[in-house]
């Protein structure tokens, strides 16, 4: 497994988590809970952006593994 594909896997899990979190933040009736979920959503968004940028660099460096 190359570095890029490992990062890709983590990114996929993170995106899945983001989706589940969003679902819960919509479902909950409690304002405080909603606030915590939204904060977590924001943080996961930032991490996803960072990882995607890193992935681009990695794929540029190892173009032979692109798409794996």
């Amino acid at each position: 497994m190359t570095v890029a594909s490992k990062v890709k896997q983590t990114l996929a899990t993170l995106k899945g988590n983001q989706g589940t979190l969003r679902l819960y933040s919509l479902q909950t009736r409690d304002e405080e809970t909603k606030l915590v979920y939204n904060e977590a959503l924001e943080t996961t968004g930032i991490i996803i952006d960072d990882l995607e940028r890193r992935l681009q660099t990695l794929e540029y460096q190892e173009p032979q593994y692109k798409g794996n």
Partner: protein
Amino acid sequence: MQAWIQILLSSVTLFFLLLLLTRLMGKRNIARVTPFKFVSYIVAAVIAALMSLNLIPNLAFGFIALGVWVILPIALDYLSLKSKWIHELINGKETVLIKHGKIMEENLMQTRLTGEELLRELRYKNAFNLADVEFAVMEDTGDINVFLKADKKPVSSHDLGIKTAPLAEPQTVILDGNILNEPLSSLGFNREWLGIQLETIGVSLDNVFIGQVDSSGDLYLDLFDDTLQLPQPKVKEMLYANFEKIQADLTTFALETNNEAAKTMYSKNAKELDYIMRKLKPYLLR
């Protein structure tokens, strides 16, 4: 008119009249009323019974007596709502039986409670050891309530310094295979949402005995068919576990890479994730 018809008629009339009157007298728990209230209930009941059996020759007299014994307690209830003085006059005041862990013998004497009876009442409240009791009071209904010493009280999450997520009451949305619309819409869901949930779990509606939705929107089901093993809602635990995995991945990446900028990016994000996980923990794990 034959006597038995008369008794039948008056009994049926009184049955419904008494039903109405007891509803008027309020829904106070009969085991937790003050002694006087209890007496007024009984007098009203006895008058009604005598009238129903035609033992009171003049029915009008019976109705007058019944009216007095029903209306006066209601009137006194309203008066005691308005005035604290009347409230104390009618219901009496609570009596402190144990203060600072010491039994107040005079007050015990005043309530005509023996030591054994006090101990029995304490045991009802799960206070087997007198040394554990800080404060005990006899309410005007005769109930004894106990306040335990601070170190003997059951521990709460506040004592442990653990943050817990606010949890509203769950709503029952399915009963006996029928969808209850009102609780469902009070949660902000509709029948379609419930249908999708049932389909994901893989059960049909008529197999569900009870379905409850908690405040976070997780559905718990009890089926008629108990041999069916249902997946219990574990989405939140999975979510938290996934976050833990991602956090570990990020830390590994930070250790493996030689690129300085990437290293700081990974470790910064790992730290941020750790922070947010600690905030999410009470909401996702419980």
